[in-house]
């Protein structure tokens, strides 16, 4: 069976055989970079289209249906429009920071792509502290948001950026603690080990109620971390017009937009990896026949299916709930999510120590 991992392997062997090791590595770098970039663009197109369709159906509308087949080319047309638009820099803005911020946000999400396992044995960087790396790098994006808000010389942007700072910093705590519960059960920080440990069942099934609780907390926390409604206070359309990216236009705005969607993809991919088994097919105990059929579905399909399901759930939140107020947002984190996840962590540790999980 032809798998993505085999293609990648044979490509590497061919490169190694044709060029000297140094050149081969360099070519691989360029290849991977191009692939990540094009995957970014593809994700942006697909997710924006998906969001528009999801919102449309929930709002009794049809959604984009004119450009291309059933409107599929709509986001492409929008992208072309954004590319040809003039990227304004406001007069009083800090020019360097203003132009640098969107790239910082985008680069952060690019870095996060590295340790994610997209399919069986298909990973950009197999790092043994994958989870730690993700938690650490994802915090950088808040700097980009703060930079954008401050350098715009716009009060709405400043308010949005400050809100976003308070929000991301506090919700990182419970996201981290939720991730920790799986790490404790597995006993490893490597994403590959975590996936391998779910061979006989995903953690959300194996880990009893505590893992389900941490899964829910993780979803809530990452929704807040990616500034999505109902926690989209940094943008808060009806309050701050567009929050930290009020002054951005054209491609610079598009980069923020892209980074938002890529971030959603990444947090959902991590959620799928930790709790739903990543690329691991659905296996049920001793049903050999069923397990065998499930193995026939390619691992990349499993991974993408799980990730997109989580993305859909996050979109579902956005198009159902009203927005929280800033003090309620922080209340929810410090009074509810953090105590619960701390207590939950204790429970998980206890379960792991006693070996009560399946």
């Amino acid at each position, binding site marked *: 069976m032809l798998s993505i991992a085999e293609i990648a392997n044979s490509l590497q062997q061919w490169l190694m055989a044709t060029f000297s090791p140094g050149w081969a590595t360099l070519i691989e770098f360029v290849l991977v970079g191009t692939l990540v970039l094009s995957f970014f663009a593809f994700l942006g197109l697909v997710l924006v289209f998906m969001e528009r369709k999801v919102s449309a159906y929930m709002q*009794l509308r049809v959604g984009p249906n004119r450009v291309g087949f059933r409107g599929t080319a709509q986001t492409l047309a929008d992208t072309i429009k954004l590319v040809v638009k003039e990227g304004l820099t406001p007069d009083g803005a800090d020019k360097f920071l203003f132009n640098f911020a969107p790239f910082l946000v985008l680069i952060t999400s690019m870095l996060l792509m590295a340790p994610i396992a997209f399919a069986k044995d298909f990973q950009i960087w197999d790092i043994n502290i994958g989870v730690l790396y993700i938690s650490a790098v994802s915090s950088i994006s808040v700097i980009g948001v703060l930079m954008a808000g401050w350098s715009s010389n716009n009060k709405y942007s400043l308010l949005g950026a400050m809100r976003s700072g308070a929000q991301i910093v506090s919700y990182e705590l419970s996201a981290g603690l939720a991730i920790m519960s799986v790490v404790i059960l597995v006993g490893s920080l490597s994403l590959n080990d975590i996936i391998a440990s779910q061979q006989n069942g995903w953690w959300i099934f194996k880990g009893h109620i505590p893992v389900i609780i941490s899964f829910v907390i993780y979803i809530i926390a990452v929704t807040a971390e990616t500034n999505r409604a109902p926690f989209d206070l940094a943008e808060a359309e009806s309050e701050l017009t567009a929050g930290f990216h009020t002054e951005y236009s054209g491609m610079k705005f598009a980069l923020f937009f892209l980074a938002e969607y890529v971030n959603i993809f990444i947090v959902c991919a991590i959620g799928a990896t930790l709790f739903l088994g990543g690329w691991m097919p659905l296996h049920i105990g001793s049903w050999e026949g069923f397990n065998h059929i499930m193995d026939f579905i390619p691992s990349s399909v499993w991974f993408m299916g799980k990730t997109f399901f989580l993305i859909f759930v996050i979109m579902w939140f956005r198009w*159902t709930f009203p927005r929280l107020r800033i003090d309620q947002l922080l209340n929810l984190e410090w009074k509810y999510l953090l105590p619960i996840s701390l207590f939950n962590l204790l429970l998980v540790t206890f379960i792991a120590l006693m070996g009560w999980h399946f």
Partner: protein
Amino acid sequence: MSFLTNYFSTIYTSVRSLLKGMWKTGYYFTHHKEIITQNYPENRDSLNLPERFRGEVVMTHNEENEHRCTGCTACELACPNGTIKIVTKFDITPEGKKKKALDTFVYHLELCTMCNLCVEACPTGAIKMDQAFEHSVYDRRLLTKKLNRPDSKLMEGVE
């Protein structure tokens, strides 16, 4: 203890209310027959506007190209916006008498608010409201219309 029960019952009711809302939006996401929007320019033919819908003022003409407007300017006086301007001329009747008649019925669509007061004021029923609603043009001069057709004349017996 009551603090704890309070704490958890708050969480329970909150989560329940949120899930109920999600159930509702989830229902609409999966039931596409509930969609209420229409694909507008495509369904132009099936658009069914009620006969009272007020889109623009038109003057009715019969097959012999005759209208019922006597040029009495009742509509012009009734109009709150100066939308209607009636230019009259003097016809010579067969008996050799001069008679006031309509020359041009000028209608400024761009000023019209579709209030229907002119139609109500018309003593002879010469004008009525039409259902056409797609009025956008690239040149606003096109919005100033002449309602009586060329060479049309007053219907026999209308005073």
